[in-house]
């Protein structure tokens, strides 16, 4: 559905990645993890066609539902107007959005549980509210592919949790191909089927989430010791989380 085939990207002599290949079919969700500066954002740009490839090719639908880290609209438009922009590909160069496009936008806001944001001005929203509006806009494109650039990085813990729940509920609908980048392996555990690790110094490995998210690989990925910890929930059930040893302190 959406992916790359033997793709390489180079800025002059500097090669960001080489011969990268993956494919996310409809019904699967893939998390991309990697250290800073390894090229996660460039990989997404290449996937969306904003970045030209030195070799290889990309396959993607004409428009993918893209959720940027920060929306760039400066205009004093309402949340609904921002979501309606997702219909652009259906409008054509001289087209105007119709009542039908507004209905599609309202439906997308309902899907992310943000009807209340329809009439609120986008420039007055909080980071978490903007994120929901941008996700609704991606859904309003009608594209089966959804691409999120670090959807949790600028959010507080409550909003991170809500965003992950939303990502997981979209995954469980099994009618989207979802790709997101993140810095927290626990977010991959929470909302992904597959994981692509962009290893330091080059080379990528990918596979199902329980093969990729394990202490040895992640210690290598981030250069910090990682270990599993058991977390018990309020009703007594236990879940596993993977944590780093920050500042030499063995977590948990």
């Amino acid at each position, binding site marked *: 559905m959406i992916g790359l085939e033997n793709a390489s990207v180079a800025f002059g002599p500097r090669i960001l990645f080489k011969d990268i290949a993956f494919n996310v079919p409809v019904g699967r969700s893939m998390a991309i993890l990697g250290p800073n500066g390894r090229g996660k954002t460039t990989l997404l740009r290449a996937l969306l066609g904003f970045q030209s490839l030195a070799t290889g090719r990309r396959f993607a639908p004409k428009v993918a539902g893209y959720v940027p880290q920060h929306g760039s609209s400066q*205009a004093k*438009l309402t949340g609904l107007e921002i979501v309606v922009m997702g219909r*652009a590909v259906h409008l054509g160069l*001289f087209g105007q959005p119709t009542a039908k496009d507004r209905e599609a936008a309202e439906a997308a806001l309902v899907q992310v549980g943000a009807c209340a944001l329809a009439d609120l001005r986008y420039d007055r929203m909080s980071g978490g509210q903007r994120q929901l509006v941008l996700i609704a806009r991606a859904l309003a494109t009608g594209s089966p592919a959804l691409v999120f650039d670090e959807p949790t990085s600028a959010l507080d813990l409550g909003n991170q949790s809500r965003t992950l729940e939303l990502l997981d509920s979209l995954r469980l609908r099994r009618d989207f191909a979802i790709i997101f980048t993140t810095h927290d392996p626990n977010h991959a555990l929470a909302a992904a089927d597959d994981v692509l690790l962009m290893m330091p110094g080059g080379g990528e490995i990918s596979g199902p989430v329980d093969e990729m998210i394990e202490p040895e690989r992640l210690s290598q990925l981030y250069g910090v010791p990682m270990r599993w910890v058991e977390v018990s929930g309020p009703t007594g059930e236990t879940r596993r989380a993977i944590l780093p040893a920050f500042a030499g302190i063995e977590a948990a």
Partner: protein
Amino acid sequence: MSDVVAEPVAHRFSVLRVGVFGALVLALLAAILFAISAGRFSVSVPRIIEILIAGAFSPADSLGAMDERIVLLVRFPRVLLAALSGAALAVGGAALQGVFRNPLVSPQVLGISQGAAFGGALALLLGFSGIILLGLAFFFGLAALVLVGALARINGRTEVITVILSGMVIGALFGALVSIVQFIADPNTSLPAIVYWLMGSFSTATWARLGLAVPGMAVGLAVIFLLRYRLNLLALEDSEARSLGVNPDKERWLVFIAISLMTGTSVAVAGIIGWIGLVIPHAARILVGEDHRVLIPASALLGAAYLTFIDTLARTLTAAEIPLGVLTALIGAPVFGILLRRHFKEVNRA
């Protein structure tokens, strides 16, 4: 629940908008009637309407009286040319500010005005006027735009910031060329003509000149009007716009060509009239907001009314006609200063 709340809010806004547009249309009509009536030979409003109706139905035999000749041959074409130029300059400014995501740009930024000014000055130096002047102004306006495009295209991609910087470079180049033309012009004949023309004026307006100006301005206005929703999308960052299926590189150029058509034509028929493209879109934004679907028509109406009114002041305030560019700058600069302060006060509060 939220839908129930949403309905009245949306309704109230649209009622407000209809009111604003009604007021703008009335302001334009008032400016036009005032402009035709005012002057050394004043004509009453009922008489104007009578003359215009007579002129529309039987143009041949309605030019007997003095007031008929003044209204139909002198003032009416001048007023229409001023209104059309005002609409074109304001819409050009509003569209450029959207595409550049920057409220401080205007058609001068792309070097179009300076290119067109060089073309017009060259025509006057060589002793031409009329259609050759218009042709040269339009040609060099477009040439400036093409040069900006060639200079700003790096590795197959055109970024907004390189377009602005290239526009400054090309504008400065054509500004120097205009100075050279003035330097070698005959101080007794062509130099005053060039200087006066560059200051801007509608005093030479005739039906023939209006006929020259209409095609370029009408096509430019129509293209921008059709693109009014697309301008909302082009105001996003390039990567975000691209992700929504927009091709910002190509579609921006369509906007630029439409703007250069309007700007080149207006420079050719009336010289450089600054500030309209900067002040009017700001005022329109205060009235109707930033959605280009309403901002573009509001800018057109407000620009037309404003330039019609300013042109009337230019020819009636003193015995000799004040150059239009001087008046628009004298009024535009302080107004713009106030708007700028208000804008940044609001930004700081947010």
